[in-house]
């Protein structure tokens, strides 16, 4: 097995103002230890590259730079603010005979641009969720405030990035929806309405069950990044803190839980507030709700994020940040929401178990597939057994995941319905289907199958799970 180097992320943001000196342009640079001159050089290179590509296309400048040893990704999230991420190419040392030093070979093909480009964009979205836009910060408190915010956020956030486990799902940035019957869905809907009516301070609500979304009142783009935060940061930290870390082993009983589509269980018995007054009973404990900023294009709203949990259900209440949320408010919320949510959660659980029983016990999902719908951001993967920021357990070889990435790149080239079937060297078959705004990737481990048989298998999958969605033969 070739040894792969752990990639490092270096992020530099710069505000290209012609009057500023070179050094002043750098708003954030990681790792901090790097010499200033070196930083300036690197930033200068990025500027030169972007400028150069404008010669050929003024409106769409550079997105990435490939060199032998590393790859750099560029992103301009707001006008004249640039983000750059540098990722090292994995290296393989090939031993040489005659006592010569081993030759180093850089494996550039292992890095797929679309994946890491998306990761960089997500970095910005996550920053924006908790800090608002760069421009706002600059307007409010000048460069100093902006620098402060960037440092505070990215220093921590970069440590949570585990670039080696990034794959196609990062390109999608989708949301996993919990499948529900109509009755239960309506119950949830009316619960949300009731709470919003009785507590007029609540502006938006989102309802999740076991890592999956059921209902959200937020704009899609905002919910997308909030979902990522909840499922990769808040929930893991709370329920199974050792799994939120980087190199933690899995507990055996947890592994059992994971097998069922890898849905993480929130039901560790601890209910109540996940943000804010985690321990409501202690009257002296101070608390603070995290603040998020949404709708940055239009109304630019800053909100308190209240996350309340009962068994496996979690509800997010978002309240205008100008309101001061007192202990009384929290107790009121606790009293109102607690019992109703607990009831609802057990209802859902019951429905869920009924469904499971009727569809038969599944030790392991029959088909390995990934599905994504660009319109509602719905994603579903039976390949990932666990996906957080730091860990990604997939049940297929990473090379196959990269083949999926390649097919996704092919799909992105044209806006037509397409189907790509591929047979890998290991005799695995990979099928990619794109129809309207939906993409489906299936991996089949049927070495002796031929094209027709593979086609039939996929048809069967589509008939059971994706009725009437994919039409191409």
């Amino acid at each position, binding site marked *: 097995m070739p040894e792969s180097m752990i990639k490092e992320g270096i992020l530099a943001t710069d505000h290209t103002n012609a009057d500023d000196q070179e050094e002043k342009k750098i708003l954030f640079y990681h790792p901090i230890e790097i010499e200033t001159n070196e930083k300036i050089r690197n930033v200068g290179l990025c500027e030169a590259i972007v400028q150069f590509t404008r010669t050929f296309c003024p409106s769409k400048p550079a997105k990435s730079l490939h060199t032998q040893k*590393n790859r750099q990704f560029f992103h301009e999230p707001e006008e004249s603010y640039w983000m750059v991420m540098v990722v090292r190419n994995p290296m393989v040392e090939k031993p040489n005979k005659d006592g010569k030093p081993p030759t180093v070979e850089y494996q550039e093909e292992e890095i797929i641009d679309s994946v890491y480009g998306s990761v960089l964009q997500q970095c910005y979205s996550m920053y924006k969720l908790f800090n608002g836009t760069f421009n706002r910060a600059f307007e409010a408190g000048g460069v100093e405030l902006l620098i402060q915010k960037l440092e505070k956020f990215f220093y921590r956030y970069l440590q949570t990035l585990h670039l080696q486990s990034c794959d196609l799902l990062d390109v999608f940035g989708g949301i996993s929806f919990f499948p529900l019957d109509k009755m239960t869905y309506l119950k949830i809907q009316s619960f949300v309405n009731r709470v919003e009516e009785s507590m007029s301070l609540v502006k938006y609500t989102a309802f999740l069950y076991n890592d999956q979304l059921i209902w959200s009142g937020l704009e899609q783009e905002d919910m997308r990044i909030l979902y990522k935060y909840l499922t990769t940061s808040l929930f893991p930290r709370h329920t199974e803190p050792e799994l939120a870390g980087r190199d933690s082993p899995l507990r055996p009983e947890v592994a059992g839980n994971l097998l069922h589509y890898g849905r993480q269980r929130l039901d560790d018995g601890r209910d109540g507030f996940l943000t804010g007054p985690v321990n409501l009973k202690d009257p002296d404990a101070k608390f603070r709700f995290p603040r998020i900023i949404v709708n940055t294009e239009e109304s630019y709203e800053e909100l308190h994020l209240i996350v309340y949990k009962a068994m496996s259900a979690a509800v997010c209440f978002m309240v205008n940040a100008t309101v001061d949320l007192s202990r009384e408010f929290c107790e009121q919320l606790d009293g109102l929401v607690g019992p109703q949510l607990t009831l609802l959660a057990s209802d859902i659980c019951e429905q869920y178990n009924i469904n499971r029983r009727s569809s038969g016990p599944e030790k392991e999902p029959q088909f390995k597939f990934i599905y994504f719908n660009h319109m509602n951001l719905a994603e579903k993967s039976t390949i990932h057994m666990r996906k957080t920021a730091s860990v990604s357990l997939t049940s297929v070889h990473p090379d196959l995941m990269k083949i999926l990435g390649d097919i996704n790149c092919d799909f992105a080239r*044209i806006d037509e319905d397409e189907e790509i079937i591929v047979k890998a060297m290991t005799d695995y078959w990979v099928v990619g289907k794109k129809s309207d705004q939906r993409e489906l990737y299936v991996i089949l481990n049927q070495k002796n199958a031929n094209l027709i048989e593979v086609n039939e298998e996929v048809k069967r999958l589509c008939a059971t799970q994706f009725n009437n969605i994919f039409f191409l033969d």
Partner: protein
Amino acid sequence: MERSKIRGSSEFLSEDPLTESAGVSDRNEDVTSESWRSHRKHVFVLSEAGKPIYSRYGNEEALSSTMGVMMALVSFVQASGNTIQSIFTDDHTVVFLQKGPLVLVSVSTSRQNEQQLRGELLHVYHQIVSMLTQGSINRIFEHRKNYDLRRLLFGSEKVLDSLLEAMDSDPSYMLSAIQCFPLQPSSREVLDQILQKAVAPTLVFSFLIANNRLVSIVQEKTVLEDGRLKPSDLHLLFNLIRASSAFQAGEIWMPICLPLFNYNCYFYAYVAYLDPECTVCLVLLSTDREAFYAMADCKRKIEEAFVTLNALECLTNSQEYKVEDVVITNLRHFLYKPSNVFDHHRLLPQFTCPEMPVAYRTQEERICLMDEYRNLYNRIHRITRPLKLIYHSAEGETLLAWVTSKFEMYACFSSLVTKKSAISELTKLLRWIRKEESRLFICHIQKHSSTNQSGKNSSTDRERSNQPNASETGLLSLL
């Protein structure tokens, strides 16, 4: 029909390669204009000192500042012990290649992958070497870093233009193989013998080309043992001849270096057309600059033999075959490259493909189809995750790429095809190719009759032994 007979069915060349066509650049094009920016593929060649040498579109002098920036990027990255390789934007890919004192840059919207674009730049570099030799280039820049190489390349822009255009629409570059003129083995043998007998002391290679397809090739035995003639060299040779002498009656004598064979020395090429319509071309390569008359003498012998045996007949009468000849409904076009079929095949990789169908007659459509093939090629031959088969159905067409130990094949079907019919058509196609094999490919490379008769070549490095021949159906069950 008549017209195509006169000019030869140059399927992969536009009608007038040297004058009005989409690919030929207007050297005075305004480099700040939108139309310049929107060209599909720019290629720039500059020296390490940042001096412009060539630009496909526009005047390279007007681009000297842009080229200066390119050189700056290259050296900046080099300064930190790294090598710049490429830059990606939404639409463009910029690829860098440094060979010795020359830097080549491609700016392309063709969606080809980096390796392919770099391969094309390498061809451009080799074409320059074919005109100057690598040794000279290196020496010149060693003495004078600021040397303006255009002084030596004056008038050769059209050779590079023609190469770039050919690379866009000719599959031979992508496959690194030669497409031969389909001929009955008996006829080909006759022609081989004619060439074989016309020898001279310094004659090393003899080629007979008809309608831009290789008909016959004869080599000098000892030369063969030194190194194989690679398809890349042949492409450069043919391109050079085509760009400098297409449809010109009379004899041409010009130096040419074959970079992959020997990048430091010149061969001297004697080029003459054997028919009044200039479709049948004879090329004799000699190692001696003074051997013109000896070569002309060989040509005369060949001409006489041609007249005696009425050889021109079979060359001017043969046509490209069409997909329809194979009697298949949905298949529009294909490329087939055998790998281990003949022993001698390793000496000269070849491929075959039919005439372009009606749907792909314009240059633009051809390039589109080639782009699709190139994309398949990239994916299937990817170094770290190569594939065995790709089946891609889209609204415009259905494409298939298939690599086995015996061959690689790329096919384009109409989008109406079902998987079942695609497979049965492929079966039919493979059977047809097998039947026609001896006609479609050059099976033996002859040696000059002044040397040993032995057909064996002892110095070729043997690849791993052939696998036992699978029957067609056996092979297709894998599909």
